[in-house]
Structure formats: C-alpha cells, structure tokens
C-alpha cells in the first residue's frame, strides 16, 4: 500500500516538473498583475513626494487615508460614484423586466418574425457605437432637455438599457431554452394561465441566469465610456469613468498623484470586489452563455 503511494507521488512530481515552464509563464503574468495593483493601492495611501522618491511601501509619514477623503469629497468622486451606482442598479432592473419576458417568448413559441428578431439582436451585438451615436445624439439634442439633470440621467439610463437589450435577451434566451417544458405543462394542467406561469414559475427558475447576466450588465454599465462621454452634459450627472477621466486631466496641473491613485482605486474597487466573490460565475457566463458565432 505504502509502496503504491510512493510511486504515485513520484509520477506526480514528474508531471509537475514537466509542467514547470507553464507554471513559470503564468506565475510571471500573475505576479505582474499583483505588483501593478499592489503598487497603485500602496501609492494611494502614500504622498506624492514619496511616490516620486520611490518610497511607496515604506510609509515613513504614516498611512495617508486623507487621500481618499480628499478624492471622495473635493474631487467630486462621491458624486460620480453615486451616479454610476444609481445608473447601473436601475439599468440592471429594467433590463431584466424588459428582456426576460422577451427571451422567454422567443425561446418557447414559434411565431412570425421570431428568427428575425433573434438574428437582429445577435447582429446588434457587433454594431460599433459610432454607427448609432449620431442619430441618437441628434434626437436627444433636438429635444433640448440635456440641461435638466433629471432628464439627462433618464436619457443615460435609457441608453444603457437599450445598448444592453440584445445581449441580455440572447443570454437569457439560451438559458430559457435549456429549461424543461414540463414545468409549464404541469402548471397548465393545474389551470395556471401562461403569463402567471411565467412570473410565478419560469422567472424564479431562471434565477441563476438572471443573476449572471445582471452581474455582466452591472459591469458593462459601470465601465461604459463612449456614450457617457457624449451624453453626460454636466459634472452633476457624470458617471465614474468620465469623472475619473476629467480628474486625471486636471491632475496634470495640480500634481496630486496620491489623490489620483486614490480615485483610481475607488473607481476600480466595486467591480473588482464583485469579481473577487463571483469570479467563478462570471467566467462560466463568459464561456457558457456567450455569443453564438
């Protein structure tokens, strides 16, 4: 028995040795990523002077939490942060309300135009933003409402939702087609009307798919840049991505590197934390329910 185990161990070591080049390559890449993030976090607790003298991790003058306070309050990061949080949350809810019923019907019933809608949605996922931004801007600018911050916010959320409708629908469609029809049949036999069946039975059953696609939508809206840059008209309604860009721009004149890195960390953190807890689900979503080429 013991002998067998020994043999097994030796074979394993041989295997690990053979894989050594692979370990080295991946470890170097991962190390680089860690140094990149670690240094930026370190710098955000440091001072601009220490950053320039290369003494980021010595913390000779203590840990400077005030960088965060400064970025959060005086540099408006709190405003951008709350804006993005509101935009992303509302968009995620609306996307499920709009796309889940459509995905269900498209996956379950054959009707005129079903295939056409599906193909249209798949094609829309490959359309560059340049192809749609001009008429949309013309439309919205023509209403003259971008000066009102509430209307501006509504326009942004409408755009975030619209851009993500095709992806969300197709993702949920694949998910619904993998659910067995037997549940609806059982519900129909018990006299449950189809719409009620959807809300009470099918939607709760699609919960894993809904959660995954909502994570993706949240990340997409949080990181969206092009549309926000064009449609967000004032500092009051800017999202984090645009706000950070503006900050970095002005940072060139103030030279407050520590404050800038603190802002970078604040913007970076929400989706990063989401990822730390949900990386398995996110990765499964990328490869499983993704686009059909």
């Amino acid at each position, binding site marked *: 028995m013991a002998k067998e185990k020994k043999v097994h161990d030796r074979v394993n070591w041989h295997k690990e040795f053979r*894989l050594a080049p692979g370990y080295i390559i991946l470890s170097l890449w991962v190390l680089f990523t860690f140094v990149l993030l670690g240094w930026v976090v370190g710098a955000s607790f440091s001072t601009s002077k220490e950053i320039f003298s290369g003494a980021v991790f010595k913390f000779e003058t203590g840990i400077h939490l005030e960088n965060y306070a400064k970025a959060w309050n005086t540099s408006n990061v709190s405003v951008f942060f709350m804006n993005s949080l509101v935009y992303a949350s509302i968009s995620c809810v609306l996307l499920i309300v709009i796309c889940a019923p459509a995905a269900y019907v498209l996956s379950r019933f054959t009707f005129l135009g079903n295939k056409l809608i599906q193909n249209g949605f798949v094609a829309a996922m490959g359309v560059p933003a340049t192809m749609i931004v001009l008429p949309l*801007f013309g439309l919205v600018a023509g209403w003259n409402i971008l000066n009102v911050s509430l209307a501006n916010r509504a326009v942004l959320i409408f755009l975030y939702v619209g851009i993500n409708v095709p992806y969300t629908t197709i993702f949920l469609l694949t998910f619904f087609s993998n659910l067995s029809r037997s549940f609806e049949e059982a519900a129909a036999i018990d006299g449950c009307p189809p719409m009620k069946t959807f809300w009470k039975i099918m939607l709760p059953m699609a919960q894993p798919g809904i959660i995954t696609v909502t994570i993706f939508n949240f990340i997409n809206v949080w990181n969206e840049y092009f549309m926000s840059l064009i449609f967000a008209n004032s500092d009051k309604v800017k999202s984090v991505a645009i706000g950070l860009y503006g900050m970095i721009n002005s940072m060139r004149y103030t030279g407050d590197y520590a404050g800038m890195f603190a802002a970078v960390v604040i913007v970076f953190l929400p*989706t990063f934390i989401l990822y730390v807890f949900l990386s398995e689900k996110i*990765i499964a979503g990328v*490869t499983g329910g*993704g686009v059909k080429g």
Partner: protein
Amino acid sequence: MFDGAALLHLIGIGKGVTRLKKNKTMIVVFVTPAVVMFSIIFLYPIIRTVLMSFFKIEGVTDAMSKWEFSGLANYIKLFSTELFRISMWNIFRIWFFGGIIVMGLALLFAAILTSGIRFKNAFRAIIYMPNVVSAVALATMWLQYVFSPKFGLFKSIGKALHWEWLEKFQWLDPSHLFIALLVAYCFGMVGYHMLIFASGIERIGTEYYEAATLDGANRIQQFRYITLPLLKGVTKTNITMWSISSAGFFLWSQLFSMVVSNTQTITPVVYMYQNIFGAGNSMTERNAGIGAAVGVLLSICVVLIFIVCDKIFKDNDIEF
C-alpha cells in the same frame, strides 16, 4: 428508467400548437418592449447613419429637409484626409499586430491552463480580471505608473535586471506611444480570449489524445495536429470578437493621447468624435455626414472580416 417529466414533455409538443394561438397577446406583450428598445437604439439609428453618410449635414440635429445630397463625397473626402488615413492605419496596426500578440498569448495560456496544472481556477481568474475593472482606471495605472519615466514599473524592472534598454526606454515619448498603447491594451484583452480558447480545448474529447499518445505523438505534436484543427470554431469566435472591439477602439486611444497629443494613437472613432463633438480646434468644416461615413466604414470592415473568417473556418463543430 422512465422519466415522467419526459413524458409530459412529449405531450407538450402536441399541445404547443394550440397553446400558441391562445397566447398571441402574451407574445405581443412580452416581446414588444425589447423590440421597441432595439428599434430605437439600433434599427432606426443604423438606417439613419447609412443615409447620413451620403449627405452633407451642417449640424447633427438638422432635420432631413436640410440635408444636402452629396453621393460618395463624404467617403472621398475621408480618404483624401491624411489624419483619417493615419487613423485607419493605426486601427489596422492595433487589429493586426495586437491580434497576433493577444491570440498568441491567449492560446498559449489556454494550452497551459488545460494541461493539468494546479491552481488552474486561480490563474484563470487573475488573468481574466482586467476585463472586469474600469478600463479608465486600468489605463491610468499603465500611463501614470507602469510607463512613468520617473518611478515606473518597467523602469524598476530594467534597473533590477540590469537591462539598460528597458530602464532607459521612454514609453511615453511620442514616437513610442503606439507601442505603449499596444502593450497596455493587449495586457487587458488576453484574459477574455484565453477563456474562449480554454473552453474550446476542454470540449475536445480526451479519447483523441489517448489514441495519439498510444501512437507515440508527443505533447507538441498533439497540440499541432489535434488541438489546433479542432479549435477552428472558437478561433472564429475570437477573431470576430477581437475585430468588434477593435472597431470601437476609443477609450485607450483618448487616454493615451492625453499625455502628448499626436497622430500615433488616433483611431477612426477618435477622429469622428473630435470631428463631431470635439472643441473643433483641428477640424476646419463641420459635417455630420463625414462622421456617419466613418461609422459605416468601420461596420463594413467588421462585416468583411466576419465573412472572410466564415469562409476560412468553415468547420463549425465546436463553437460558442
């Protein structure tokens, strides 16, 4: 083993037809919101953009009655503008060289990940991570830290390894800015394409490899003659996705040209943005039709690449 649910499923097929008629309202109510959103955000703008590209239009908000038909003039104008030609060349360089680098690294990493190493999930998760975080934050880290000539990471690495060329290399110098942009962008993109390749490799049955091992093929031969040919479908997916993200290349370009404004990093989307929405410092005439033509050209490129890929990678056995 008889499955009750399967029986119900069988009955359900017959009932589906009658159920469909009853549920016409349900179909309409459920599908309309999504289709309306799709029409407003995609269908209507795409059609209008195509039309716009054939007209001379003073302002983006102008009504159609004010448009002035100009045929292909916008396209001719674009191609005779040097800055636009440079921007097209830049996006081609990003797509082509960046594509080779990203696909090569992604395939290498995917092959390593699926070779039976430990900590596979941790490696995979960390390499994919840059795709999840804000690209503005990521680009800032590269620009302000990694490439910094004063306290940059590459400078420190060069110093530690006594590689003078790396220590002295001025990444943010106008003549090197494109390389810097390419390196930073590729770093973030590898993870996504690696995931697609890795899941493609995982779907290949182990029996192929067992048979090959019996026939005496080594790992490299197995990779060359089994893995690669069976990855046609996922390669198509990867190239398509890479081309789509290249066509929309904007954020990285804008952030990198912030340090030094130059022609090294301008892309068509940036050109269009400056032309239509910019402060108007470099552009002489305002014509929304030109912006529309840029969008149409980029879309044509994506469609062409898609068609070519479809022809080359005909085998669709494994795809996502």
